[in-house]
């Protein structure tokens, strides 16, 4: 009973958050103001974090909040500031290929939805799933997935150097 309540609550929560996210996402790709777009993106990212919590992934959620909303968004805002003189709405943020964009996106969406429909039907999440501890994740990172981890650190290093070299004035 209680479990079902919880489930209900979960579903409600999911619905609200999902709706928010979708709306936010749409605004991100449609608004005429870069700064607003960034802020809407924050909404989406935060929603994603919330979804992670629903999906029993606290750690990822926290990381999401820290990395994205903490770091990436700041980056975006900085990028906006640095690349644009004035903040505010303006006309030519979009180009003229919405007539390509809509069909492509639509087609993709339809296809995927169909695939998912007959892929998973109404399969349910395991209700009594216990949380994944950080320890489990770290074991994986430093165990079987050590190699990709290194690859990743290389990538980050390269990114750091690249960013420095690119952004330096010379």
């Amino acid at each position: 009973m209680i479990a079902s309540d919880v489930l209900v609550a979960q579903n409600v929560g999911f619905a609200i958050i999902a709706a928010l996210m979708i709306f936010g996402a749409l605004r991100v790709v449609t608004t005429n103001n870069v700064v607003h777009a960034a802020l809407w993106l924050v909404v989406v990212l935060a929603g994603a974090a919330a979804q992670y919590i629903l999906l029993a992934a606290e750690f990822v959620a926290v990381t999401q909040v820290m990395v994205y909303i903490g770091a990436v968004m700041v980056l975006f805002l900085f990028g906006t500031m640095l690349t644009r003189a004035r903040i505010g709405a303006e006309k030519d943020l979009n180009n003229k290929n919405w007539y390509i964009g809509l069909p492509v996106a639509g087609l993709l969406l339809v296809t995927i939805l169909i695939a998912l429909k007959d892929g998973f039907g109404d399969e349910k999440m395991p209700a009594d799933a216990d949380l994944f501890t950080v320890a489990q994740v770290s074991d994986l990172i430093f165990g079987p997935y050590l190699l990709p981890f290194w690859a990743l650190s290389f990538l980050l290093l390269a990114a750091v150097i690249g960013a420095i070299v690119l952004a330096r004035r010379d």
Partner: protein
Amino acid sequence: MSVVAAETAEVVLSSGWFLENAFIIPIIPAVAFALIIFFGKRMPMKGSEFGIASMVGALVMSVGAGYQWIQRVNGAPEEAYIEPIIRTWTWWQNGGIPLGIGQHIDGLSIVILIVVAFISTLVQIYSTEYLHGDRRYTHFFASLTLFSAGMLNMVVAENMIQLILGWELMGLCSFMLIGHWWEDGANSRAALKAFFTTRTGDIGLLVGTSVLYFAANDWTQKTLGVSGFSIRGLSAWALSGEPSSTAITVGAVALFIAAIGKSGQFPLHTWLPDAMAGPTPVSSLLHSSTMVVAGVFLVARIFPVFYEGMNIYGSNVNFIIVIGAITIVIAAALAFVQTDIKKVLAYSTVSQLGYMMMGLGAGAWLPAVFHIFTHAFFKACLFLAAGSISHSASHHSFDMKKDMGGLRKFMPITFGTWIVSTLALAGVFPFSGFFSKDEIIDNVGYAGYTIFMWVGLLGAFMTAAYMTRATYLTFFGAPRGAAAGEHHDEHDAHGHDAHDDHDAHATHDAHAAHDAHGHDAHASHGPRESGPLITIPLIILATLAMGSGLLNAVPFGSEWENFKKWIEPRGQVVSVTGIDHSAGSHGESRVIQPEARVTAGYESDCGKKTPTDGVCYAPQLKHAKFKWSKAALSLAIVAAGIIISWFVSVQLYTRRNKVLVGLTQRNKLLGAGYAFLVNKYYLDVLYEKIIVRSIAYPISRGAYWINQNILDGIVNGAGTGSKTIAGWVYRNIDQRVVDGAVNKSGDAAQGAGSIVRPVQSGKVNQYGALLFGAAAIGALVLVIINT
């Protein structure tokens, strides 16, 4: 004979202070070196007194040691093995194993010690006059003294590492001494070449030492309680039947390569003649009598290793003997075409070293060592005589054809000593050369190496011939050039002998020497005899060149063979009970049995079958029976050489005989041969022009290019790579160069085919659209297939 063994079992070998402390001998000049460096300039004689004093001290100690060694030998029974005097101190350690430094004194080391100390003394005395007033007089004596320290240290060396120490020190000193007048590029180049060539040979030394160490160490530690570096250990191990044939062969070959480099054997002999760029005393000491025999000494020192490794006696040809024989002939041939008197002597040195090597290769250990002994005296004498000529007669030129001739009237003493030494070198009876060289040839034949015996005889003929030529050009005929008192200046010195630039160097450095001398007196008057400081050493050496052969005058019967008795290690089995195994005690001195007892039977012959009760330190060596018939043959050959050469020289140089003069110009074949010789078989071309050049320039440049462009490129790629991408984007954005960009990407597009060309709108968004559109369609297809 075993009866003898029984009663001699209790004999105790005598020893003495000089023998026990022979390790001090190299330390004396080492200290003197430091003194010269620090205080030399302030001393009245500019530091030379330190050098000479130290040399005298070393000489005294060596002679003392020699005397006591003779006592030791005489005190021992006939055939008994004479225990060397070995002392070690811990020098360094590894894995708890102490590795020593110390002394290994036996007959061989005694002989070389005396020779080195003696000749060094004379040469230093000689130099006080010869380099008087030189700009770097003090440095010269410092290097000379350090050299003696190195050589003496190598001779007393107890183990291979210590030997390498001395070996490399000598290399360094010869670098400094050859380049003594380094203001002239030619000299410093010659110095570089000498050091570099010997260093190349030293690869063999390092490798060989390593190989032998690891092969022998366990056995030596177990049996003798010494490390695998120890000379004693290596000798015993080599004869113990332990070693795997590959290990010992590789080791022996590697070490012999080092010997080739140091002793100027073919094909690494090319540095020695160039080394004549150094001052004459240096040529006399380093490059004739002492340093260059280091290679020979190495082979003689651990002869058992080569004996087993090269399978001497066991086969009728081996590496050592072949190299030796080749060296004899090619060097002698080269001596014919030299116009520089020092180069003639240099090649003759190379050739004589070839004799020593051939002797060792044929198992004629004793004659070879004896030849080191005699050769040191007469070759040093010849060089000093040449120096005396250039010093006093030919105005610092060494060119026989230009600046000499008819000097016998002006400098009788130099002439006399020269003649004596020449006869000794040619091997004329009863001069010392005869007793050593002839013995080598004889024993080579006796040991069954018949072909090489004939090579030796051929060498004897050539030796006699080229020495006669040199003598004639120098002392007979009419005085020429500087000998005639005229002073030719630097320029025509450069001009002459265009085909052989090394002569140009020699003359050139003569001028450097002359600048160094400061006093220009020679220009004024003609040739004259040199001062006593030069002539007295000459006389002493000449006397020894005459008499030293009698130390081992085989022809006069066995009672004359003192050298054999004192020096040659006797191939007897020695029981190892005598040797204390208290090895590895850190620090303090470790005396291995100065008074080893002589036991075991004599009939067991080392080197033929493996010793059972004990170890062998030396193989039993064969000795040829002397026959006057054989001696007569070689003497006849020598005489023929002298006479023919004399006749030719007279015809060629004085009578200007039409048939002979310019023969090489007229006759193609001879001309070619002449050019071939003058260019030293083009080996230098191979080494310098091809190998060294290619490494020094293209290869290293190439490697460096890789470094800068590929490795560094990869590294910078992390940073500048993304930068270039950005730059590329920027360039393409930039309208001014848009055409070039169009062409560039146009090429890319053509690769894709001109149908898709319109798709290449260059708009990122469209690319994205295409990407995702394609993805969508692909997904659709999959979905349709799967459902």
